[in-house]
């Protein structure tokens, strides 16, 4: 069966249903994980390093495919959706900013080649950058600016969900708070955000919903409470 178009209306935005992922036949990283991403909210996926959070995120826009279970976008199995179309609707922001060679304009046009100068300028303003940065060499941006530019680049594909893989881990505290604030704003505009973090103070700041992943599986209610409690007691920042 070939790729099909995504239905416009569906109650469900992005859902992982009993998803497993194996690197090879004897090494499974995720074991039947289920979660859903709510629209207009920041869903945080927390858990210790190595729990499989980033891998799960990569299954969300089909950079990887599950070995069992399925990922649904607007109620449709993502396996039957054209991956290029899926990735425009389910955008991704990586742990470290990934500027491409060339100017900021060149970067922004990768996902939106037809975008006008005005649209490009607006996308920068939406993430808190000056429109005048368009001619700047992307590699010359500071870490915070580069990550904001990467978010603007993703926004130009008009995503309904943005997967954020520890997007502030390479940034200083001020920029970290700035990106968190931006994610909350985007959620208020209606975008569903799935944010991966192992920084529990950050989980408290940004999460509308929080889920915990431990050893590649959904944590039980007790485990979730105990894990998040660590953050309350300030053991992990």
């Amino acid at each position, binding site marked *: 069966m070939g790729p099909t178009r995504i239905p416009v209306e569906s109650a469900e935005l992005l859902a992982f249903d009993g998803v497993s992922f194996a690197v090879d036949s004897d090494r499974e990283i995720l074991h039947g994980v289920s979660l859903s991403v709510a629209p207009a909210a920041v869903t945080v996926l927390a858990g210790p390093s190595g729990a499989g959070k980033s891998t799960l995120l990569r299954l969300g826009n089909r950079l990887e495919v599950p070995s069992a279970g399925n990922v649904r976008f607007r109620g449709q199995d993502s396996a039957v959706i054209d991956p290029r179309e899926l990735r425009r609707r389910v955008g991704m922001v990586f742990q470290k900013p990934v500027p*491409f060679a060339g100017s900021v304009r060149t970067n922004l046009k990768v996902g939106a080649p037809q975008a006008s100068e005005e649209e490009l300028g607006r996308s920068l303003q939406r993430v808190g950058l000056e429109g005048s940065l368009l001619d700047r060499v992307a590699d010359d941006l500071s870490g915070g600016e580069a990550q904001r530019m990467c978010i603007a*680049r993703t926004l130009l594909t008009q995503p309904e969900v943005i997967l954020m893989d520890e997007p502030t881990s390479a940034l200083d505290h001020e920029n970290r708070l700035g990106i968190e604030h931006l994610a909350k704003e985007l959620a208020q505009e209606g975008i569903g955000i799935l944010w991966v973090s192992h920084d529990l103070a950050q989980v408290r700041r940004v999460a509308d919903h929080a889920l915990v992943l431990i050893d590649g599986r959904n944590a039980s209610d007790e485990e979730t409470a105990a894990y998040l409690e660590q953050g309350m007691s300030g053991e992990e920042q």
Partner: protein
Amino acid sequence: MNATQIGWAGLVGSFALVVVAIALSFTQRLQLSRSILWASARAAVQLLLVGFALRLVLDSNASVWWAWLWVVIMIGFASFTIGSRAKEVPGIFLLGTISMLTVVVVSLSVIFGFQVFPVEGRTIVPLAGMMIGNSMTASVLVGRRIVGELSEKRDEVEARLALGQSWQDASRPYVRSALRTALVPQIESTKAVGLVFLPGAMTGLVLAGVDAVDAVTVQLAIMYLILGSVATSVTVIGLGLTRRVFTSDHRLRSIERATH
């Protein structure tokens, strides 16, 4: 004395220079004496075997099919060499074989189709040899380079895929860079020819007493042929390899996993 027939005595005389190289290695303690001796002896044995075999293949009474068989064997050896020199490149043996076959078919079709040279054993074998030899080196270079680029820039390629680009678009800047790297040395050597060194075919013709301008026209035709062959082989490897490291649903495979 004939410039094209130095005889066994001449060969032994030229070996004096190898002795000089060994002496230099010995006095400078480079510990290369055995390597130099081994390389010289191996080259002598290989080339003499080839020479005797070619004498049979290129005999005016021999069928031209022997020359074509020779070309097939050369393609096999070249593919094997590409495979052994670029082990980290997934599927390189098959890609190398396809690349060498394409080079031979395209280039010889042009050269014989336009009747630049007559279709004879003495033209088929050396022309195919030069094309395959040069293309082989460029193929190894481009294969390794593409794998290196896509591994090093994996985060960029995946960021492009995540923006909805196809694998063709997402890989283009990196594959293009690898193709340029593989082609530039050939272009540079084409530009420098005659100014720095006189190329082999021309030197051979001049030694054989051919008019220098006639020798130059033959050399130019061969150089254009080599340039075209290198470009063809590099493109075939580039396109084939890039296709291989991506899945049909636009995911970049783990390069290690792509080898299975």
